[in-house]
């Protein structure tokens, strides 16, 4: 393999990964745009049949998924990866290999989603919101959708890992003197973005795991008429609403950087902006999601409550926009390209945001919901505000990324044509407030034809204008004028050359060369392994050789895991695990902090699953008592075994804390043995359920089966993972790791293991005693 390719596949450097995210997200942006153009052509005139209905439905679904999840969200992460460490004076991310892993999982997941088009039956065609029961295996048949949803699971994992990584980085690795007050606005907004993502994506992951379980295993979570549809709605939109702020906040961060630089004055009311975003937007964003569900038939009181909370959340945005605009007063404004895009973004956000206030009314929503009014609103904020803001950021940072200046004329043309054609494309949609979304075609009598034609023309111009951006990027890289180190006169740390070693160098990543001192092939190997495994899962209900692929995925997974362990044993990626003494994490070590953040996301995933179990039980009219099904004494034994294994794990930790390696091994083996006993009892119970009991009790026999087997199965999967980690620890001990001074690996394992115990403490009463 050539050195160049190898370099990019194995890099763990944050700047390289930032570039990879830029390229990856722009690629997916092009794919999503092509799908959009196809849709707009189809909608150009009434009774059109440019695409078939099936093709159109797939296009609209993947357009939404790809644009929001594989283009916009990662584009924000691209900025975060490249610039946050520079802005806070950190040498790299907290966990570089995990950072690379995030990218490759994201990329492979995206390929899986696109691959769905080429499988028999085509890709998912349920709309990006994947509403149930439409997206279950009864109505949405074929391996394509299953594969696309698996790709989504990978994306969810990728972003959750990134959230943990970047949050620990900013919390922990700021250079001395960079207090929270001195952290620049982009980094602050990336932190806010990830605080949204941190608990939103676990909800999506829980929902997708349940969905794939329905599709592949035949469970009934969403297919039942006991509120299956609303279960999906709640879990999905609990993710969906914070997600739109994940998309928006990086753009606001860029605007907050650009405005003061090009207005020659400090950002007005900077602390107020931060307070409004951190204390109001972030928490409230988790409390408004039901405004996507106003007319689904939920209780009127909930409609009213969420209408109020949605209205409340517009207030901090008022503060932010007001402060942005105040920055234009008492200023000397340079209308350079980044500034034009920032101002354009604010204008489009104002229009989009005001239309959002219309949608916060549960009475007005009766007419607007499911129509092109919503389409107009969401594109004004997600394309208008977010993309214009991020493009402004791209132009702003292009001199830093490439060392060269872009072509001014092309960029001006790009802005002007984009801004005008954007409004031609989306403004007419406000008037189409009676035209339903996601319809393949419409009748001539409805006089929607003219507005749709205008929108389609706008779409072509808008898409064409983005070609100017691509041309400009290529031009800049090859022929751009070499630029000053700090061409804009900005005052934040990322513009200052050569402060703290290679990371701070104004020397950009040599285009074409990755330059990471620490290379690892494990992230890309692991991502491929997971991708192959998921491909197998999607195919195995249709083709027998899907099982082969699944097996191959496991083999690759094992190979990569062993390789990773060996890398660790050879000390390649030794992370010095000290205490940082930066507020608010004065006493905790970096790796343990990462572990707690990870546990917090797992708390949410298991919490969502258990909430699902409770909800299903409450909404189902007749639910069998557990006495008739479960063997309660066995459940008690499982509890005792698991809790005792927690004791042995703690004793292992205590041993190594006092330097006793033999004790460590002894107690780890005891923990492993107890874990094995737990799994054995579990297996015995399941054997009885499948083969001994008449009628047999499986996950496909009804809702009690679905909830029990999924929840206990997920938990036991975690137990098995814990046992695999014990093997890793034992291997490391054999190679000489862990001592009285350095035992963080053991400590983090114990945290994980105890967490798994705690989850069982809820599962036991819920399934055995109810």
């Amino acid at each position, binding site marked *: 393999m050539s050195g160049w390719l190898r370099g990019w596949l194995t890099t763990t450097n944050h700047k390289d990964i930032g570039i990879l995210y830029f390229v990856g997200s722009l690629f997916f942006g092009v794919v999503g745009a092509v799908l959009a153009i196809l849709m707009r052509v189809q909608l150009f005139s009434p009774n059109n049949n440019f695409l078939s*209905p*099936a093709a159109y*439905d797939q296009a609209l679904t993947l357009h939404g998924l790809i644009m929001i999840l594989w283009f916009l969200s990662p584009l924000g992460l691209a900025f975060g990866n490249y610039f946050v460490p520079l802005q806070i004076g950190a040498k790299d991310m907290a966990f570089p290999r995990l950072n690379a892993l995030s990218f490759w999982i994201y990329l492979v997941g995206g390929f899986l989603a696109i691959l769905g088009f080429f499988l028999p039956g085509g890709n998912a065609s*349920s709309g990006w919101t994947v*509403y149930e*029961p*439409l997206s279950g295996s009864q109505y949405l048949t074929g391996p394509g959708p299953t594969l696309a949803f698996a790709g989504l699971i990978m994306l969810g994992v990728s972003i959750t890992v990134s959230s943990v990584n970047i949050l620990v980085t900013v919390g922990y690795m700021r250079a001395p003197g960079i207090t929270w007050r001195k952290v620049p606005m982009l980094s602050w907004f990336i932190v806010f973005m990830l605080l949204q993502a941190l608990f939103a994506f676990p909800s999506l992951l829980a929902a997708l795991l349940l969905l794939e379980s329905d599709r592949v295993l035949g469970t009934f979570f969403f297919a039942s*008429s006991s509120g*299956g*549809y609303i279960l999906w709605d709640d879990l999905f939109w609990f993710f969906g609403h914070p997600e739109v702020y994940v998309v928006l906040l990086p753009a606001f961060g860029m605007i907050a950087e650009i405005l003061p630089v090009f207005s020659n*004055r*400090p950002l*007005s*009311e*900077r*602390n*107020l902006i931060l307070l409004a975003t951190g204390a109001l937007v972030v928490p409230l964003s988790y409390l408004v999601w039901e405004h996507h569900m106003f*007319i*689904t*038939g939920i209780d*009127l009181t909930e409609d*009213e409550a969420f209408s*109020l909370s949605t*209205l409340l959340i*517009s*207030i901090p945005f*008022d*503060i932010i926009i*007001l*402060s942005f*605009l*105040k920055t234009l*007063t*008492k*200023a*000397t*404004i*340079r*209308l350079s390209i980044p500034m034009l895009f920032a101002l354009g973004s*604010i*204008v489009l956000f*104002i*229009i989009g945001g*005001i*239309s959002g*206030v*219309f949608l916060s*009314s*549960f*009475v*007005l929503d*009766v*007419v607007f*919901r*499911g129509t092109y009014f919503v389409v107009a609103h969401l594109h004004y904020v997600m394309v208008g505000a977010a993309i214009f803001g991020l493009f402004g950021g791209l132009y702003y940072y292009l001199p830093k990324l490439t060392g060269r200046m872009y072509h001014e004329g092309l960029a001006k043309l790009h802005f002007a044509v984009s801004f005008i054609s954007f409004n031609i494309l989306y403004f007419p949609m406000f008037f189409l407030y*009676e035209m*339903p*979304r996601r319809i*393949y075609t419409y009748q001539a*009598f409805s006089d929607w034809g003219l507005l749709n034609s205008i929108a389609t023309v706008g779409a072509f111009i808008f898409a064409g204008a983005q070609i100017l951006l691509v041309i400009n990027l290529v031009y800049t890289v090859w022929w751009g004028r070499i630029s000053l180190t700090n061409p804009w006169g900005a005052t934040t740390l990322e513009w200052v050359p050569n402060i703290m070693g290679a990371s701070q160098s104004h020397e950009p990543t040599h285009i074409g060369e990755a330059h990471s001192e620490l290379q690892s092939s494990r992230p890309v190997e692991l991502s491929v392994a997971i991708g192959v495994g998921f491909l197998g899962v999607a195919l195995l209900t249709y083709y027998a050789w899907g099982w082969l692929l699944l097996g191959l995925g496991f083999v690759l997974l094992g190979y990569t895991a062993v390789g990773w362990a060996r890398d660790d044993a050879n000390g390649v990626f030794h992370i010095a695990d000290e205490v940082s003494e930066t507020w608010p994490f004065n006493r905790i070590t970096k790796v343990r902090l990462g572990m707690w953040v990870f546990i917090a996301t797992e708390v949410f995933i298991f919490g969502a699953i258990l909430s699902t179990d409770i909800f299903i039980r409450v909404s189902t009219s007749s639910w069998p008592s557990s006495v008739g099904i479960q063997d309660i004494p066995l459940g008690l034994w499982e509890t005792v075994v698991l809790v005792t294994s927690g004791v042995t794990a703690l004793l292992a930790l205590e041993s190594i804390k006092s330097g006793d390696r033999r004790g460590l091994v002894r107690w780890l083996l005891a923990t492993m043995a107890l874990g094995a006993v737990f799994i054995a009892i579990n297996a015995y119970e399941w054997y009885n359920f499948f083969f001994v009991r008449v009628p047999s009790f499986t996950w496909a026999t009804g809702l009690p089966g679905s909830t029990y087997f999924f929840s206990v199965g997920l938990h036991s999967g975690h137990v098995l993972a814990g046992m695999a980690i014990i093997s890793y620890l034992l291997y490391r001990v054999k190679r000489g790791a862990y001592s009285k001074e350095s035992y963080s690996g053991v400590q983090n394992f114990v945290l994980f293991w105890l967490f798994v115990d705690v989850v069982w403490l809820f599962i036991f009463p819920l399934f055995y005693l109810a």
Partner: protein
Amino acid sequence: MLTSPLDVQPPTDTIWYGLFHYYLFLGFAAGTIVLTFMVYHAVRNREKKGETRPAPKFEKREGEWGNWKGTMMILLVTGSVLAFVEFQTFASTGLVVPPRGVDPIHIEVIGRQWDWIFVYPNGVQVIGNLTVPEGEDVLLNVTSLDVVHSFDIPTLSVAKDAVPGHFNALWFNATELGSYLIICKEFCGIGHYLMTGTLTVLTPSAYNQWYSSLQAPNNSGGGGNDTGTAGEVSSSNSSATSSAGSE
């Protein structure tokens, strides 16, 4: 648009447009004020070529916390406006809550891929055609046989999701004779765009005539209309449907 200009606006339409106009006017005003402010300052403070203006003086408080009191005052105004429109929303729940003290006509609506089936009080099922008398309150109990649909009569500004396993209620009162379009506005599969129906509003006497001749349940024409003939005026088992084609 699908909204035909009606001489007398139906009650639900009145409620909805009344509320909409509050939001529209205030939203427009807010947007205009803010955008004007923005464009004015962006243009006025532009750096002119060759001109050097002295750097503006900022008191310490202008940067980090700024004139936060001024911001709070503006927030008080915007907060009041928002509270006002929200109050108007709460006062308009008459759109989604059936009026009390009246005895509406109860009709069940069953959505299934890709038809609307109407079950009248005498138990007769009609596919695609909802016939009601003018000026009477009608209460629809909407449900679905398969996936989630959304029952929508755009002209009357009423809509509600049709979900499997549950009944959702919506009401209306048609004040003008004629035919109106019924659509589905929740994506429900490949035939979603074909899932239409017709609302026919008759005079009370014509309605009584029609209703009394509504026959006992028999097979609806064509069984499962999966390929989209549901939009046409249904030549089903109901006899004297007097209206013309859909609007």
